[in-house]
């Protein structure tokens, strides 16, 4: 029996997903901006990143942000994964996923023939991007642990091919997430209904 007087139609994205999505978005952006400030202390790239893209003001401040937001990112991410896997939602939304499906929908999207009538169904390109960014975020966390604790979590560092390599993996994961964000944010502005659905649920 329902507790409520009347039940509104099912939300496109459940509340738990919406809340954890926006917490993750904020935490990821803090991780990127503080990470870029850390990067500037000793860039492995030829040029430093502009200050406007950083947070923390200087190395010490950025590290404080990085090591505070990492808890938000990791705990919220764990919640999202446990929720998505235990309810079967992630499987339903992201599978089946095949190169053929991704290519077909990519071709359709580029020729403007990909509809967004049903926002609760992800097309091949969305599935690929979402599954990919979830995986890459996990790599960012793992390689982050590898360079944060190369002695206590030495096994993780060894898995990444020792410290210097883990640092490169960490930077590459960040770069991949930034590329995802560029596409992802553009898409949500091109299809504003999807943005509304991720905020209000419908």
């Amino acid at each position, binding site marked *: 029996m329902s507790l409520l007087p009347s039940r*509104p139609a099912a939300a496109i994205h459940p509340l738990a997903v*919406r809340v954890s999505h*926006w917490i993750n978005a904020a935490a990821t*952006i803090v991780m990127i901006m503080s990470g870029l400030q850390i990067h500037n202390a000793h860039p492995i790239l030829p040029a430093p990143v502009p200050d406007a893209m950083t947070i923390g003001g200087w190395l010490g401040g950025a590290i404080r942000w990085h090591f505070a937001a990492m808890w938000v990112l990791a705990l919220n991410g764990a919640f999202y994964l446990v929720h998505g896997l235990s309810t079967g939602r992630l499987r339903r939304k992201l599978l089946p996923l095949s190169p053929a499906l991704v290519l077909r929908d990519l071709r359709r999207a580029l020729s403007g023939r990909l509809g967004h009538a049903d926002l609760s169904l992800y097309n091949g390109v969305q599935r690929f991007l979402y599954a990919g960014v979830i995986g890459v975020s996990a790599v960012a966390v793992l390689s982050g642990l590898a360079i944060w604790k190369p002695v206590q979590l030495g096994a993780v560092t060894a898995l990444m091919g020792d410290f210097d390599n883990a640092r490169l993996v960490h930077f590459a994961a960040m770069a991949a997430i930034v590329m995802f964000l560029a596409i992802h944010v553009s898409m949500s502005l091109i299809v504003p209904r999807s943005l509304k659905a991720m905020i209000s649920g419908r």
Partner: protein
Amino acid sequence: MTDNETSYVLKLAAGRLAPPTRRLFLRRALGLGSLAMLAGCDVTDGATAERALDAMSDFNDRVQAWLFDPHRLAREYPAAMIARPFPFNAFYARGASPTVDPGGFTLELTGRIGNKTPWTLEQLHALPRETQITRHICIEGWSAIGKWSGVRFSHFLGRVGADPRARYVTLRCEDNYVTSIDMATALHPQTQLTFWFDDQLLPRDYGFPMKLRVPTKLGFKNPKHVVSIEVGNDYSGGYWETYGYNWFSGL
């Protein structure tokens, strides 16, 4: 409850709150509180954020002390991987390192230590010698493999009768640098009071007359030009720690 019911109950609950609280509540419930935090520079620059970051840094100190395994060793590397020349780093430019007269030098001992008689360099050099080839990891992100020789710090602390139940070991340096470490790390088998670097007497740039080599901590927790060691229970922080670097900074 289903998710719809959850959101309905959240809205109902919000309706019973006074408007300012309610806005806050709804923003939080949507997870937008944290987004607003990002947008509002007043928050990121402000004292509130600094206090929250301080609290997180203290929390991270506790997590790292818990994670620290006194028996887990930092990886040792083959001699072929030693970085030459080894990078120079300090809170001043190269060339400004202090000059210590080896003849007149004594190491001062204070605090919870049984025998506080100062040590001459000659006496220190006669202590049992160990060598490690480990990776020095700087908070800036670079790292370099080096070779350090000296006495195991736990051996030295035992010799002078330092209280192993004290919480902190504080190291003060000729260039007025200060840092402190937890006793568990001080007693770690790879923590070394170092007198030689790459088979030579520790050069001035790398910390003459001695440094504390701590391969389980970031570089700034490896003080150079050490002239005094204090064992005690009062937190004494350190030079970079007062600017906000995390105190434990374990690896």
